[in-house]
């Protein structure tokens, strides 16, 4: 009996020892940061510029969702390649759904930027960067309004277990204007060669774009025609008039040299760049990447080599042939120098027909030994075995440096865009502008003659001047042409496609509602 008691005694002791656990969880292979429940992260301006870069450094973010749903770019499937679960075809044919990977990724990139801007703006020790952070936050708001129509926000980041609230498009518009106006008041004027630093011209451009699109952003969802307020149009003109940037023109640059100075490896000296992402191999403050501007379309056997993917749609190329301009005479689509021919064998701009090896004399063949001849006609699924690799015009917008590297800064905003916006605003009732002078200046810069200053001509000129620069979808929505039938999309699309759907994942936030129609 004694040992029995001893046994119970021992058991009770053991029980007491073990049962003292407080079940507190430990991070044995990490650390528990201060302020559990908060975000646990911080941001700085360099990182925030990196968020802008994240929007532009992959071909299937801003470029893909702005150019491919419009009339400019298509991504045909080539045999087993470029199928990607129909992602490219859906974007061009307006059949995307809330699970489309590019749409979800673009949403996350923009909202990451807004979050990091808030972290900087909430940190008084970074007050010297607050005007820049406001510009960038307003820039991300512009894209959120433009693409998704609503913007989630948090008044406080103290309790991240709460769901974010959501601004409507009109509420977000007012906030974006206010942020950009604040930024304009505090940012410096653009220094010479300083387009890669946030500056007053960038803020003016963003404000001009906000006012130009105000009727779209604050109007009824699904509308395809807009009544623009004259005061907004005058504001557009005033902001552009205030800019210090200017077109690259004069001194015999009308052969295309002036235009391509914006896209060549030494473009940081171009005063036409309003705001740019610095691209310089090896530099620690290099944020951008323009390499996919040739990689995505160039054939595997071309120099420089590429991925043999997206093409310029044939009917979009026809814009370059309007007003009696002969094929090849618009330097924005066809330009080369002896160095370019020697290095790559073909023109930059839009590549058509037989592709040449470096030096420009020998023909390139595809992987099956057929002549590599880029054709204007291209279906969304290339079924002709001979044309699998060659269908469709390819483009080079940014020119690689001698080592096949990206070395040209990425132009977020460009003066030619601002001038065409000023022309559009003048034609829409704004005062203080001269539409004809702006349109003529943009055309004369590439050696082309005057055409009448009509809205249609401004629209077409934007297509020629700003091809594949990531503005086309916004332009087409504003002009009411986005839903119309086009070469590879025979039917008019449903008005829901004017906005992208809210990504499926974001709807787990109960304050977020799916855009109408999805």
């Amino acid at each position, binding site marked *: 009996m004694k*040992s*029995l008691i001893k*046994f119970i005694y021992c*058991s009770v002791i*053991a*029980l007491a020892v073990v049962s003292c*656990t407080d*079940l507190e*969880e*430990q*991070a*044995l*292979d*990490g*650390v*528990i*940061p201060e*302020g*559990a*429940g*908060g*975000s*646990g*992260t911080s941001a700085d301006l360099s990182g925030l510029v990196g968020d802008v870069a994240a929007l532009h450094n992959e071909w299937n973010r801003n470029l893909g969702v702005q150019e491919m749903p419009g009339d400019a770019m298509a991504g045909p499937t080539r*045999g*087993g*390649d470029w*199928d*990607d*679960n*129909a992602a490219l*075809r859906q974007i061009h*044919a307006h*059949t995307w759904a*809330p*699970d489309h*990977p590019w749409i979800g990724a673009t949403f996350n990139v923009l*909202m*990451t930027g*807004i*979050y990091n801007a808030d972290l900087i703006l909430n940190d008084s020790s970074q007050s010297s960067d607050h005007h820049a952070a406001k510009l960038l936050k307003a820039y991300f708001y512009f894209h959120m309004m433009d693409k998704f129509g609503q913007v*989630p926000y*948090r008044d406080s980041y103290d309790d*991240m*277990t709460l769901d*974010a609230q959501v601004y409507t498009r009109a509420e977000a518009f007012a906030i974006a204007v206010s942020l950009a106006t604040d930024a304009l008041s505090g940012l410096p004027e653009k220094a010479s060669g300083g387009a890669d630093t946030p500056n007053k011209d960038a803020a003016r451009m963003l404000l001009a774009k906000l006012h130009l699109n105000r009727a779209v952003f604050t109007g009824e969802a699904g509308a395809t025609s807009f009544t623009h307020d004259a005061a907004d149009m005058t504001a557009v003109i005033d902001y552009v008039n205030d800019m210090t940037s200017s077109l690259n023109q004069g001194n015999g640059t009308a052969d295309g040299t002036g235009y391509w100075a914006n896209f060549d490896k030494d473009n940081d000296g171009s005063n036409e760049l309003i705001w740019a992402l610095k691209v310089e191999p090896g530099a620690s403050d290099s944020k951008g990447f323009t390499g996919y501007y040739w990689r995505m379309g160039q054939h595997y056997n071309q120099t420089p080599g590429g991925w043999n993917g997206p093409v310029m749609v044939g009917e979009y190329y026809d814009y370059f042939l309007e007003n009696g301009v002969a094929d090849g005479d618009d330097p924005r689509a066809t330009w080369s120098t002896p160095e370019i021919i020697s290095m790559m064998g073909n023109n930059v701009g839009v590549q058509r027909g037989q592709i040449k090896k470096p030096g420009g004399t020998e023909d390139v063949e595809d992987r099956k030994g057929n002549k590599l001849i880029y054709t204007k006609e291209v279906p*969304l*699924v*290339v*079924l002709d075995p001979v044309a*699998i690799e060659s269908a469709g015009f390819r483009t080079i917008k940014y020119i690689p440096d001698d080592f096949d590297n990206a070395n040209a800064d990425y132009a977020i905003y460009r003066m030619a865009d601002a001038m065409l916006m000023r022309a559009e605003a003048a034609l829409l009732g704004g005062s203080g502008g001269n539409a004809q002078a702006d349109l003529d200046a943009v055309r004369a810069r590439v050696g082309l003659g005057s055409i009448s200053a009509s809205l249609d001509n401004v629209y077409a000129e934007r297509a020629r001047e700003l091809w594949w620069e990531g503005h086309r979808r916004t332009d087409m929505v504003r002009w009411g042409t986005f839903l119309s039938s086009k070469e590879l*999309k025979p039917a008019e699309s449903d008005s829901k496609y004017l906005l992208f759907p809210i*990504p*499926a*994942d*974001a*709807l*787990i936030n*109960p304050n*977020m509602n799916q855009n109408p129609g999805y």
Partner: protein
Amino acid sequence: MKNQKTFFSFFLTICIVGLSFAQSSNVSGTVSDADGPLPGATVVVKGTNTGVTTDFDGNFSIQAAGDDVLVVSYVGFESQEVGVSNQTSISVVLSSSNELDEVIITGYGSVTKRDATGAVDAVSAGDFDQVSADSPAQLLRGKVAGVQITSSTGEPGAGVAIRVRGNSSVRSGNEPLIVVDGVPLAGGNTSSGLGDEILGSGSAKNPLNFLNQNDIESISVLKDASSTAIYGSRGANGVIVITTKRGTVVESAPNVTYSGSVSFSSFAENSSFNDVMSRSEYISNLPSGSAVASESGSYKWQDVLLRNATSTNHDITVTAGGQNSSTRLSIGANLQDGVVNKTGMDKYNVSLYNSYNLLDNKVNVQTRVIYSDIEDESHLNTNTAGYVGNLIGTALYWRPTLDVVDATGAYTNVSDDYLNPQELLDAYDDNTFTKRLLANVNVSFALNDNVTFRTIYGVDSSTSAREAQLSPSMDIRDTARADGKRGQASIYNDDRLNRTFENTLNYVSNLNGVDVNLLAGYSYYSYVSEGSVLHAKGFNADQVNLIDNIGGVVDVAEAYSIGSYKNETELQSFFARASLTYDKLLATLTYRVDGSSKFGEDNKYGSFPAVGLGYKLFENESGLINNLKVRGSWGVTGNQEFAVNSAISKSRYSNASISVVTNANPNLEWETTTSTGVGVDFEILDGKATGSLDYFQRSTENLIFPVPEAATKPGPASPRFINLDGELVNTGVEVGLNYNLVDSSDLTWDVSANASFLSNEIQNFAGFVQTGRIHGQGLSGAYAQVLTNNQPLYSYYIFEFQGYDSDGASLYTQPDGSAGPLGSASKVLDKQALPKTNVGFSTSVAFGDWTMSTSFYGAFGHYVYNNTANAYFFRGAYETRNVPGSVLSSGQAIADPNSPSTKFLEKGDFLRWSSLNIGYDLGDSILSSFGVTNARVYLNADNLATFTDYTGFDPEVAIDKSMGGVPSAGMDYLAYPKSRTFTLGVNLTF
């Protein structure tokens, strides 16, 4: 070997010391049933440990006093008590019991089916198919209604998915809690999977492989909340209770048995399998002038990939009983070769059981030690292979006109993305070494006639090392370093240390006609997991043993990537149960409070109540209905199998910078499943038929999910785990029947069948969560399944294929219902990956010394996604790669891509003839001169035939195609093929 001998003789000494001699007079007799004498029946003097077993003629002889009572028992028969009454010779005739009297080991106790208030079932050793099962889970396959066992592939030791009453969690794990001899095992794997960015990832081995089938006495399945709530926050997915064999309870000399078998396995070709082309078919389809036509080689994928495999199994068991002790020792070796070359599993087990009574039988100490040493040999059977392929992918696509080895013995080399399957087979090695020790001491202590105190202390310790290497001799695209150096090696170490400490107090009495059984307890569990990984690439071209000389890597600075992890989970629980029986009314009330370190700071403890009620409408009556009990249950259980450190903020260092891994959620709690069920257990037709019928509904809430990045914006990219709104509802009907067709003196014939019908739906759920990742060329980002509102888990969401147009372009259903191109098609959501119906059937016949049994199982109503065909079988692959002949005749254009669609979605319905066993009892006559007292030989056939329309290797498949931690179901991608096995075995008793 010397140590083993020493150990063995030490053990025998213990047994012999335990023997002692009783002082009463001698009583002898026979035990028989209606058919004749029963050898091996147990005769025990009631209230003592004195007992004997009957010999082959049913005779026994025992020392007993004139006023003693003998308890005579035999498996499958109702026990009988007989007073000695000063007789010296006693004959006892036992009558066979039935299913209702089978004792089912449940959580912290046991119950007969007759008295159960919850849905419980059990399979005991006698019901096991005589297959050499890798995992105890396979022993349940097709045997228990409502339990689905799915082998992920046919590889020896591969993972097995066990589902009790369906899937009740979105991503926190759906595996039931496994309890071995009272010790709840930690969930999760004990060995590592493979993870390689180029060669793909592979699955971990089944963590239950450590148990030897020969050591298992019974496996119980607790299906409803009334029976699982005693396991609280770990009971939501059902509980599997495994009880290992014990020593004999009677005083006896050591009894030695040996079982041995040899098995021959071969590829079990499915008659619907859509094979790639033979050499002659391949050539006959070549267009004129094709360069391939001049190739003179020949190749059959079966010749390179497959083999006829031989496996052997040996088990030696010694049992002994003494006056105060009983002991069982078993040693097993199971050497299993897979039907794919260079795969297999070698398993060595030692298991020791000892029970010892002391202090006038008031204290009983049971000790169990199970040790296993497993070596898994695997190959590049990855789940995520791309265009380049894995072992099975390359074997299928290599064209049949090319020799793998030329006349000089050199490998035929085509290119670094068109791999030679023989070269890959030879160049790649993958071995996993796992050692696991499960030991526990279970002490029960009778405080008085009514109260028992019991304490269990258990340790489960395992170490595992997975070692994989690719020889530098082989050039696979993108596996070389920038400097061109090739070859890679990976070592994954995983260690687990799990401790269990449980204390229970049990009160049993009859108060005013009410049978009362009260239980109260406290448990503490600690689960520690740690491991490390080392990858190295870029070796000297002629180095062979990369794993064992990983420092041979060239240019050390660039060669390695390393990592390690460690985590601990602690659980602490208080629980109580009352089982009450009054006349025909039965009630069980359960309550458990569970605390877990994984739960959020403000939610450390959860409560899990349950109630079960039963009423016996008929009890022991004759005629049509003999016994019939209705029962109903309601209860709440939880699931906490989510990742450690989900509730806290955690950062980790990586490359000298620190980044957030998870963000805290102090409110994070377990997933809660509320179950309601009704059922009947019955015995009808003069005891010839027994069965059960159940209906249940289970609704799971608080679904644990990482907030997707898009939903937490603006905010950090790292996730926070939340309890998401929505319910996952499983509704089902289960039926199980046993029928004794013939029961005569020389022939018995039993049949049993079960079926379950299950529907699964997510409700009030805001998410649209992707899973079922599809891999292959041009398929980046593709997926096949979603979790979304008002649909079953893992519903297929893909384009609907409508055939080809005249140009050979694929047509898909458009939003208006017409057929058109993919660019404008819309996806459809109407097929499910989870079977709606599962069935099992088995029958056994005993005729004289012969026995025969056979089993079937099947699953219906679901679809399998054939990612293999999606990735590899398209028209454009030919003439470079082999494809099935049907691809050439399909009308598909050479340039038409294989976009993910219903083209690759196939009905997964199957019925499998899973086993046939024929045995013959040699008795003691032939081998008695060798000391053999009984011998049985048997022939077993496993996986004899599968009836299915599925065109892949096998419809029973579950390749891990998870995305973002959300599992998939029913996806097939280059799955290791299943085998057909014939086994010749012998069981000898000495």
